[in-house]
């Protein structure tokens, strides 16, 4: 057999068909006509018969343009068509690839049947693309959960706003020392809860970059030694109860001080989490020690216990993983150490644990030392902070009285904001939604509009858009401060994008509220410099900065209180400081208004109107939360979620659950309302009577 024939047979055996191009889309077969060619293009050409491949295959016809150009240019190598698929007479799909090359001046087309390798290639691509789709799906799930988390955080911070406001008001009343202690305790606990809620948001939010951005703006460097001392002071009673000694050990080599990069409130929580962890494992009669060491450019802090040491079957780094639970599951959900890890790492530090040579465990973390600039700022801020803590907080009138409109759908929150602003000497009015805010702004001038984000009928963002549109013709600028229940950097950005001047986070701190309102209004009414520094030495920043401080307010390290499972009456007494008048007023308002809200939910379910259901359930949920009725709140939240998800088939069952919880609460509130008023004067000084706006 001639060499050429052997070569041609070999090529055919390898799945190739070889052609010489003669022009006009016609080819001459060189060598064998493989069976797959017959399957696709029929019988082999006889003798010197030409094959019009371009006519037989639109794909080849298209490729021929590239091939001709290649042949014409007399380029070296080959030009390739890429894969394509032809269907055979037997219905099978045959993957092919063509390449054009020049050989001895001849224009050669090589077509390869890829059936043997195509399956594998297909499998790789299929796997890769399936993985990409799965990845996309997972990301969406995470996003959904984040949205849910933000909703939950919003719901949790809503009643906190009211509680914090009540405490702030009570604190400024002329209370007997004994009672003041309880108010302080209540305030501390509500602030602690706020920190925990924010901790959850931070731990689970994938928006870590935004978080980081906030935290690198260090304006005050905390003193790690002061934080350690404070943690020891806070935890000593709990340790004593368990007969474990808690002490401050070595903190040598601190001639340069102990100021580090970070945030005091979160460092308090890190120490708190590490001490809680040590307390769980340290046996009775042993010691737990906190120590500090100077390490080049870092401060090294540790908590040593004399317990059993780290579990042998667990790597130390696994202890800091999400939902990791230690030996014998003595811990809780496994969030505490995870929080410590992400927080410390975010500040450029490290965290770890080890079994000590002499027995017991050491949990440690290391944080970078604060720079000189941050340190000097910290000194100033630290002094201000300690002065704030010690000085009794009194209401001081603002330099200039402002007219402020408060748009907030939750009545109690609205009333509290108004009350706090009035105490400061401002003139404040309230409305329950965006539409009412627009109407009020048309009738009167307000220096500042405080605008809640989530309101029925017209949200805060929609209201802002309407106001800004209106201003295009009037040329005025209404100062708008948005109030968000989420308080992330994203929210702040969103608010500014929407045209708001500043953003406040719920629960709104009194100081932050005054600072934001008055700083924003300075643009309209310039006041003398330092005018508000008497009450607030730190106030110098713009409204956005002022708003941001809410998340960074001084921490109150955890004390250990049992979960609050009190009934409605106890809850109300606690949240109002035992103000019977306020309790009756709240009960009366609820009994008068809430049935209408429930009726709206019924109507929305009957009409299958998801949007209306979500709005009505949101409103009712806010009212229910004031009474600490967790089951009723959960039922309302469920209805809101069904409405938002447009998932109405489950709504009748949800409604029935809500109705029965609602009825129980109604009974309790009726009992409160009908109880004869105590003749004895409340020890609390009632706030001045104010006409309640019945806007709903």
């Amino acid at each position: 057999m001639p060499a050429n024939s052997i070569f041609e047979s070999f090529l055919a055996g390898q799945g190739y068909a070889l052609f010489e191009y003669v022009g006009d889309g016609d080819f001459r077969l060189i060598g064998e006509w493989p069976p797959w060619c017959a399957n696709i293009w029929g019988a082999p050409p006889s003798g010197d018969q030409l094959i019009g491949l371009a006519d037989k295959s639109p794909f080849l016809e298209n490729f021929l343009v590239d091939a001709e150009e290649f042949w014409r240019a007399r380029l070296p190598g080959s030009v390739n068509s890429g894969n394509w698929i032809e269907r055979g007479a037997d219905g099978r799909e045959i993957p092919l690839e063509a390449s054009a090359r020049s050989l001895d001046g001849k224009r050669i087309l090589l077509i390869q049947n890829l059936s043997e390798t195509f399956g594998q290639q297909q499998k790789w691509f299929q796997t890769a693309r399936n993985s990409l789709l799965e990845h996309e799906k997972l990301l969406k799930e995470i996003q959904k959960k984040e949205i849910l988390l933000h909703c939950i955080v919003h719901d949790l911070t809503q009643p906190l706003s009211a509680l914090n406001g009540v405490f702030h008001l009570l604190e400024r009343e002329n209370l007997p020392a004994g009672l003041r202690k309880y108010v302080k305790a209540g305030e501390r606990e509500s602030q602690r809860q706020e920190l925990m809620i924010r901790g959850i948001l931070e731990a689970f939010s994938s928006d870590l970059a935004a978080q980081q951005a906030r935290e690198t703006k260090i304006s005050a460097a905390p003193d790690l030694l002061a934080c350690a001392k404070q943690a020891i002071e806070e935890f000593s009673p709990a340790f004593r109860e368990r007969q474990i000694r808690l002490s401050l050990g070595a903190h040598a080599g601190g001639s340069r001080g102990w100021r580090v990069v970070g945030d005091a409130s979160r460092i308090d929580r890190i120490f708190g989490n590490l001490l809680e962890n040590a307390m769980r494992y340290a046996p009775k009669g042993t010691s737990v020690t906190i120590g500090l060491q100077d390490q080049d450019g870092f401060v090294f802090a540790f908590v040593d216990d004399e317990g059993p040491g780290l579990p042998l079957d667990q790597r130390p780094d696994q202890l800091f993983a999400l939902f990791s639970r230690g030996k014998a599951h003595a811990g809780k959900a496994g969030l505490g150490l995870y929080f410590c890890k992400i927080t410390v790492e975010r500040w450029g530090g490290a965290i770890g644990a080890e079994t000590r040579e002499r027995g017991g465990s050491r949990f440690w973390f290391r944080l970078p030392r604060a720079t000189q600039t941050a340190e000097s700022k910290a000194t100033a801020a630290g002094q201000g902070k300690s002065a704030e803590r010690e000085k009794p907080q009194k209401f001081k009138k603002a330099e200039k009285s402002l007219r402020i409109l408060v748009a907030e759908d939750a009545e109690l929150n609205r009333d509290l904001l108004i009350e706090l602003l009035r105490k400061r000497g401002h003139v404040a009015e309230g409305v329950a939604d965006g539409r009412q805010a627009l109407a009020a702004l048309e009738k009167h001038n307000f220096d500042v509009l405080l605008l809640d984000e989530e309101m029925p009928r017209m949200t805060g963002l929609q209201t802002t858009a309407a106001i800004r549109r209106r201003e295009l013709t009037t040329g005025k600028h209404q100062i708008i401060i948005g109030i968000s229940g989420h308080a992330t950097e994203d929210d702040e950005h969103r608010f500014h994008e929407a045209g708001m001047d500043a953003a406040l986070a719920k629960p709104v701190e009194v100081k932050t509220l005054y600072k934001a309102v008055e700083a924003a209004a300075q643009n309209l009414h310039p006041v003398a410099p330092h005018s508000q520094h008497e009450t607030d030495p730190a106030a110098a920043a713009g409204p956005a900065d002022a708003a941001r401080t809410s998340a960074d307010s001084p921490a109150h390290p955890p004390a250990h209180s049992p979960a609050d499972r009190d009934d409605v009456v106890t809850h109300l007494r606690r949240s109002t400081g035992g103000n019977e008048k306020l309790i009756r007023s709240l009960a009366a308002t609820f009994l008068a208004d809430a049935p209408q809200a429930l009726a709206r939910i019924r109507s929305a379910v009957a009409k299958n109107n998801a949007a209306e259901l979500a709005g009505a359930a949101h409103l009712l949920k806010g009212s229910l939360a004031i009474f600490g009725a967790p089951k009723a709140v959960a039922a309302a939240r469920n209805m809101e979620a069904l409405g938002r998800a447009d998932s109405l088939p489950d709504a009748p069952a949800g409604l029935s659950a809500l109705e029965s919880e609602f009825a129980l609460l109604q009974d309790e509130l009726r009992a409160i309302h009908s109880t004869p008023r105590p003749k004895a004067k409340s020890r609390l000084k009632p706030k001045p009577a104010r006409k309640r706006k019945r806007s709903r």
Partner: protein
Amino acid sequence: MLQKKICMLGSFSVGKSSLVRRFVESIFDEQYHTTIGVKVDKKVVSVSGADVMLVLWDIYGEDALQTMRMSYLRGMHGYLLVVDGTRRQTLDDALALNDRVVSEIGKVPAVLALNKFDLADQWEIEPAQETQLTAAGWTLQHTSAKTGDAVEKAFLQLAQLMPAK
């Protein structure tokens, strides 16, 4: 018979092959089979009373693994730009691809198929965005290769947009 080359363009897994299969063979397969390379199908339709042979080029979806060769679009009379309405990103990718197509070969009749409309509960394209697309001159169809909704309509609409010659 007049022949018209139509290309199916869009990201991977948006349903290009499924639309062709539904249109040509009235078949739908629930399982996703990724396309490698190009597959050419033909179908005769009636446009303004005349038979036209549509030559459908089902071109693999673009992603990090495969980039589309612009040479496949040579001689194209029109294209169906396919988007998975339940994956917002595929719309952005499709519009970016469209920009490349227009810059390479100029304006050619096209229909934007927002596919997988049977999954309307997972729809990620806002009505406002669809309005914007229409305002920008796009002919839109909410298609479902699964149910067959608007599939034939999308192809016929594209055929009608193409010059009769």
